């Protein structure tokens, strides 16, 4: 693939005396006449910290620059990339007291270049770290959940996929992924595009998009992505997971090469024997059909050997979960899929598997009765100004499955209402009541309640 964008770092030795002798040249000449380009050092190390909640990546780029005593001018340019120019910074990693960044100049009329004015008290090579934000590198998580035939346990396999459409190749990059939702007040892509004519940014984006699509097609056809031939069986890469303020940071073992317009998928999690709860839910407000859920908690699975990977050690990043059921014969059946939101450690994960016709609900109104009617005179006649309506309700549920289930029934009622029933229920808010039933395989249950709604002057709200 043709490399069409690059970051160039030039160490430019500006002749300081020139500034006073020839003001004009010094002002305009940093990249022209008054500059003597000495070296273009290669990258020593690059680290990518990619965020998934926003299109932003923090790039840490280490290089060794050779300084002369006095003022040094270093030019940094980033044609055809999506770097936020306001974020670019340089810091010495050694001799911190001898090297001072005096200022950063963004020359007139050159949108993708800056020049650092660095005062050095020493002569010789110094490792420096250049950091900046770029747009175009993203990562996503996705999961496969394999349930056993009895739907008691699942095996959860998580993967992370990194996609580079930043316009820049990152070779042998240490890659870190941040899980969490950060606040950004301006989009990096917009900052990167500022100063460009609008069309240009669109073009860059389109080029990137096309290339990614093309690559994905090639992958689907089973071509492309030829990895280096393996001499021996290699182990999957480990991922170190650490807390970072309110987020989590995943550091992928070793380094990765993520070329522009390529994607890479790596395993991040594999936990077996996670106990699940199968829940069926009927909700007036949310699902008008009986819907099936798997629930499990993102916490340590007990009785698991210490060395085995476990849940509850990290949050689960947002991602698509594809759920399969594995029959004892070994074959799989697709159960459903859902995008789950970030799950903190300890939180309960709920995967909506869609409507399930095997659990039935029948709701019937057995009797309607109007009571407590109050009237008021209205001219020569009178009119009803307040009344109650009593509904005797009967609900029949049936579990046609061969497994025991928990069934949640959420009913929504308007206005001023109350329930009279022997059944236990929870009031979730002023409109919603929830009944929870446990049904054995093949079991049928029936329960009754009376709903009283107060109208007109009888209503207390």
């Amino acid at each position, binding site marked *: 693939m043709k490399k069409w964008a690059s970051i160039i770092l030039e160490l430019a030795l500006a002749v300081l005396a020139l500034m006073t002798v020839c003001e004009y040249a*010094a*002002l305009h000449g940093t990249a022209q006449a008054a500059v003597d380009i000495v070296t273009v050092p290669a990258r020593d190390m690059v680290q990518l910290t990619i965020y998934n909640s926003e299109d932003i990546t923090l790039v840490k780029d280490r290089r060794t620059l050779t300084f002369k005593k006095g003022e040094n001018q270093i030019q940094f340019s980033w044609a055809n990339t999506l770097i936020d120019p*306001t974020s670019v910074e340089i810091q010495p990693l050694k001799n911190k007291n001898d090297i001072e960044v005096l200022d950063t100049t963004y020359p007139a009329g050159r949108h993708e270049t800056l020049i650092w004015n660095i005062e050095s008290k020493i002569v010789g090579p110094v490792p420096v770290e250049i950091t900046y934000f770029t747009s175009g590198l993203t990562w996503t998580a996705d999961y496969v959940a394999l349930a056993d035939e009895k739907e008691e346990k699942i095996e959860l396999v998580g993967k992370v996929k990194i996609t580079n459409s930043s316009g820049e190749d990152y070779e042998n990059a240490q890659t870190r992924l941040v899980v969490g*939702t950060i606040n950004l007040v301006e989009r990096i892509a917009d900052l990167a595009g500022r100063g460009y004519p609008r069309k240009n940014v669109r073009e860059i984006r389109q080029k990137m998009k096309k290339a990614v699509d093309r690559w994905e097609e090639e992958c689907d056809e089973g071509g492309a992505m030829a990895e280096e031939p393996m001499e021996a069986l290699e182990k999957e890469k480990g991922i170190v997971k650490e807390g970072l*303020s309110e987020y989590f940071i995943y550091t992928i073992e070793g380094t990765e090469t993520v070329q522009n317009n390529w994607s890479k998928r790596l395993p991040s999690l594999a936990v077996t024997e996670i106990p699940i709860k199968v829940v069926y839910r009927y909700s007036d407000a949310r699902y008008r059909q009986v819907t099936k859920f798997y629930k499990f908690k993102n916490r340590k699975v007990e009785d698991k050997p210490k060395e085995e990977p476990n849940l509850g050690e990290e949050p689960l990043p947002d991602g698509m979960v594809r759920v399969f059921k594995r029959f004892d014969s070994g074959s799989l059946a697709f159960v459903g899929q859902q995008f789950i939101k*970030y799950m903190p450690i300890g939180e309960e994960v709920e995967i909506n598997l869609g409507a399930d016709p095997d659990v039935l609900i029948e709701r019937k109104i057995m009797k309607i009765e109007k009571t407590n009617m109050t009237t008021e005179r209205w001219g020569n006649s009178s009119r009803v100004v307040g009344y109650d309506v009593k509904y005797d309700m009967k609900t029949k549920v049936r579990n046609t499955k061969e497994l025991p289930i928990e069934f949640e029934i959420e009913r929504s009622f308007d206005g001023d209402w109350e329930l009279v029933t022997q059944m236990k229920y929870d009031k979730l*808010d002023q409109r919603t009541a929830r009944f929870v039933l446990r049904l054995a395989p093949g079991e049928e249950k029936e329960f009754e309640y009376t709903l009283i709604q107060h109208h007109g002057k009888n209503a207390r709200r």
Partner: protein
Amino acid sequence: MRSETWVIAAAVLLVVVLGATDTFGRIKLVTLPRRESIDVRLDRDNYTLCEEERTLTLQQGRNKVDFSWANTYIDMGSIQFRVISAPGKVNVLSVSYPPGENALVWTVSSEKAGPAKIRISYLMSNFNRYYAYRAVADREEKKLTLRCFLRMQNSTGERFIGANIYPKVGDMYERSLDNGEAKLILAKKLSEVSFDKIYEFDANRRKETEMRYVLKNDRQHNLGLFTLPSGKVRIYQDDGHGGVAFLGEDWGATTATGEEMKLFLGLAKDVVVKRALMDTKDENKRGPIRDVRQDMRFTLENFKKQEVMLRILEHPNGQWEISDKKLKIQIGEDTDPNKKEEEISWDDHVEIEKKDVNNVIFHVKLPPTTKEKKYILYYTIHFKNLW
């Protein structure tokens, strides 16, 4: 590319035309004194004051000094002429404005001939600048290093060479700034700044809990040296491996000394608040007048290993009163038929701060919770005298 049209910006032309009258065409360019120094003052946000010094050779009697500025954003009405030193007394008699030109002519009367140092001051527009901050917090999120940068963008049409730039924050810099050029300068570095990290839930804003850094601009927190100008604040944290990771950014408002700068960095997913309106009822009916009561319930979960300080913001309006405050622990999961709620001490955990009639803050000390053991906060609000 540089345009050639603005090269002769703001040139002072000294015209020594003794006895010449304004009825003649203006005679220009007798001598062009060099600008000896220029000060650029950025202390007022929307105004840029430039003051330049030049040395003129004055003749005894009447002198005309021609000042013109092509393609430069100078506020004509703001131009001032002052004599700093001269061989004798100097009076500025008048200023004339030639038609259709960006120019003016001072008529100056000098007691003696000789060199005079003059200072010309004027306001310029299109010298844009803004402040931006970069903060790096420590691992414990107790202290941070705050660096305040000044970014200047010179689109005035003028070239500043060796200008003394006086920013609002920090010391004077001597810099050259071409037209169209931008420059970023570290204005101030503040170390060991202590700050508070808070968790805030405001159902009016979003369903999730926000994580905020609060910087108090006072000496106690190693700030308080100056009013912090408004600007984008990017916050990083020491990653424990010799580097930093980005935590989020927010616009920081102008913060006077003694005030707080509050920055929303991101969502705190470990602190989960669910707010439910449980009931609304009329009460205390007096003819057409009534009160309305609302029962509120907040489920509070903290998946962290340590206690957090959570602020719940509520926004009632009108005449209101809060009653029936209760804090309970729910033991058992939500769908557990045997779950129960036990009341615990409100005062040990919650403090209500009435900021004003529309803003009430519940400060909650929230210990770690689990799905089987979580906190439930109840209160009732009575809206009075409605009809």
